[in-house]
């Protein structure tokens, strides 16, 4: 290994346990157009314009192919192909977003992709993310643009992952609990058994006696499922990210190019932020308002099949909901809506009239016809930035998160393989 010579001009440094350091541009941070070809910056050293790292090779006889080592000692200005990674080199991955998608993807990558460093970058962290507002019930929605088999796979993978946690001593720390209850219908549905029926536990149709409790409803499902609560689960994931050597950084990213060239791959888990970061007009908010109340005697969930009215008992409160307001970006709770939610829920569960300590919360579901789970190679001039998009789960974030995180991780792995494969020399 060569010696590191380091000169810093003004920017703050953060040290990671992996030994690499980097700094970020300030808010004005426009990068000058330095290119790999001309500057020969070595990997894992950052960044322009203020910070310079130079690695010097100690023994020229040991140096590899000049294309592999990009330090100043070895090349004099000839045009070089895009950066490659030797198999041993650390791939630097930035995960944008620290909701359930960002954090779970970071954990998956740290477990499944060898030789990479992970940095989670977000402007919001628990308890201020959308994932913190979600009740976290594992009752999946249906995405019109995704094949049912795929959705079932994602849901099953998530369920199995959380089921293992709920059966362990860590369940309470991780915010995962087992809860039984009913999904009730005001008219008999065309599909009496949903695709996820054999993923949850003990699924069956409600008996006539059970339906007597809900005079406005004529049909129902009874089953046991899981509830995964953001305010406990996200910190639990964060601990895992850090425990596996990952870094967590607070910063608002306005443009994915800010991450170049400090990072080799970007995983975009920015939810609604992708409207700006990925220029995706297909994603829009579906506003959800909920009440989190004290009603500890409520032990079952009750969900109207419309998805508009639900009662979800959690670890330390009961979530009453809700609303589905398309295109509404307003994060402030509306008192009229709260009254109306309470009234709808009391109609299903009259004992809720005794609920106390009511708190209003609003979340904007990052909604899209289908989850965006795909690679994109950003290109600008001679710069290249591989991005894996992982966002747009709408109302199914918690329910699908682990399955989609695993898939995102596979895509990241593909990007890593590409980076580690030596490119054929271009004829110039």
């Amino acid at each position, binding site marked *: 290994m060569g010696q590191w010579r380091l000169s810093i001009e003004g920017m703050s440094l953060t040290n990671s346990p992996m030994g690499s350091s980097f700094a970020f541009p300030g808010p004005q941070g426009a990068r000058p157009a330095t290119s790999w070809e001309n500057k020969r910056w070595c990997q894992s050293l950052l960044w322009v314009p203020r910070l310079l790292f130079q690695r010097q090779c100690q023994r020229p006889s040991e140096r590899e192919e000049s294309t592999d080592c990009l330090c100043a000692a070895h090349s004099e200005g000839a045009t070089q192909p895009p950066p490659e990674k030797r198999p041993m080199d650390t791939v630097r991955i930035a995960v944008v977003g620290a909701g359930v998608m960002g954090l779970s993807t970071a954990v998956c990558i740290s477990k499944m992709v060898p030789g990479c460093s992970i940095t989670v970058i977000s402007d919001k962290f628990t308890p201020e993310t959308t994932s913190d507002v979600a009740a976290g019930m594992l009752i999946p929605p249906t995405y019109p643009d995704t094949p049912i088999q795929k959705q079932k796979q994602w849901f099953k993978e998530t369920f199995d992952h959380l089921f293992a946690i709920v059966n362990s001593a860590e*369940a309470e720390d991780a915010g995962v609990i087992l809860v*039984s209850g009913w999904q009730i219908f005001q008219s008999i549905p065309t599909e009496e058994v949903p695709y996820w029926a054999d993923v949850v*536990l003990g699924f069956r149709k409600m008996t006539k006696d*059970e339906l007597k*409790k809900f005079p406005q409803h004529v049909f129902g499902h009874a089953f046991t499922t899981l509830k995964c609560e953001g305010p406990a689960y996200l910190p639990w994931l964060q601990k895992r990210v850090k425990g596996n050597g990952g870094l967590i950084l607070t910063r608002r990213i306005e443009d994915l190019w800010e991450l170049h060239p400090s990072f080799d791959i970007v995983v975009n888990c920015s939810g609604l932020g992708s409207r700006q970061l990925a220029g995706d007009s297909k994603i829009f908010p579906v506003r959800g308002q909920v009440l989190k109340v004290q009603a500890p*005697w409520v*032990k*079952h969930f009750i969900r109207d099949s419309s998805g508009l009215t639900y009662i979800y008992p959690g670890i330390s409160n009961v979530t009453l909901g809700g609303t589905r307001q398309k295109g509404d970006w307003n994060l402030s709770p509306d008192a009229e809506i709260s009254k109306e939610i309470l009234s709808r829920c009391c109609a299903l569960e*009259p004992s809720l*009239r005794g609920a106390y300590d009511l708190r209003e919360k609003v979340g904007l579901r990052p909604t899209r016809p289908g989850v965006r789970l795909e690679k994109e190679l950003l290109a600008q001039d001679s710069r290249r930035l591989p991005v894996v998009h992982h966002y747009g789960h709408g109302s199914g974030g918690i329910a699908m998160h682990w399955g989609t995180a695993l898939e995102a991780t596979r895509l990241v792995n593909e990007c890593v393989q590409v980076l580690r494969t030596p490119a054929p020399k271009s004829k110039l």
Partner: protein
Amino acid sequence: MAGTMRVVVIGAGVIGLSTALCIHERYRSVLKSLDVMVYADRFTPLTTTDVAAGLWQPYLSEPSNPQEAHWNQQTFNYLLSLIGSPNAANMGLAPVSGYNLFREAVPDPYWKDIVLGFRKLTLRELDMFPDYSYGWFNTSLILEGRKYLQWLTERLTERGVKFFLWKVESFEEVVREGADVIINCTGVWAGALQPDPLLQPGRGQIIKVDAPWLKHFVITHDPERGIYKSPYIIPGLQAITLGGIFQLGNWSETSNIPDHNTIWEGCCRLEPTLKDAKIIGEWSGFRPVRPQVRLEREQLRFGSSNTEVIHNYGHGGFGLTIHWGCAQEVAKLFGKILEERNLLRIPPSHL
């Protein structure tokens, strides 16, 4: 005085208070004057009922007296009918679902069609309980003793029923106070008023913890050891009850460490997250165990007066489960007494 009835209920647990309420509800309007009084040396939170976890669930095997099965069902149906009311939680009443676990296949219980949604456990559900290979899932009800007794006390007070802190030493002294009918709801201490070799204490000890993430009851069974000698976890309206002690003939009311350890180890094995649970307290109580519930009339002669006693005790570990059916039955017997004495203004409506 014609048309006046003085009823003394001895005992202020769930049996005493619910019987008092049932009688008053049914007969106040058909009698010229009805005076119901409750005499007890223990009131909530010091009764046996206060220690009970409160889950509606009869024993697994059929009772020797088939009437008991009927009273269990009556109680469940009555409580279920109150579930839609906004007051349910104030009464201590809420639906709860959960698991009964066994080490081998067993026949379905006789009450499987009384509870809601009874079914066998699937293999994936059994994976959650590695020590058990068979089980049931069903939805039942919690009727929390303390809350329910408070609620019954309020209802009785509204109706003008009076409560007296009094350790009754004999039926005779109650008769001397002017009682026409005595309802004997003295539970495990009935033997002090009238020897009953069939009645024994079935001592239980429980630990109450704060573990609000647990939403299901989990009751394990070891048929060789007997009922409630195997760990159980039963959520109440706020706290969770952990138990698994049933000691016949043990009159010790203080909680002890060996039993604490038995309960704690057994329940933590069943539910590892209990390690994070905060212990709120520990209590002991005596299930009034008897081969059958004693629910019958008896005439006692003291001097010149004939006093009717209706016994209603010996409900073992299913007092809350059976209480309303028994209260109705006592009310029926009471009605017969009124008929015999020609005290009814109008025939009692069949409620």
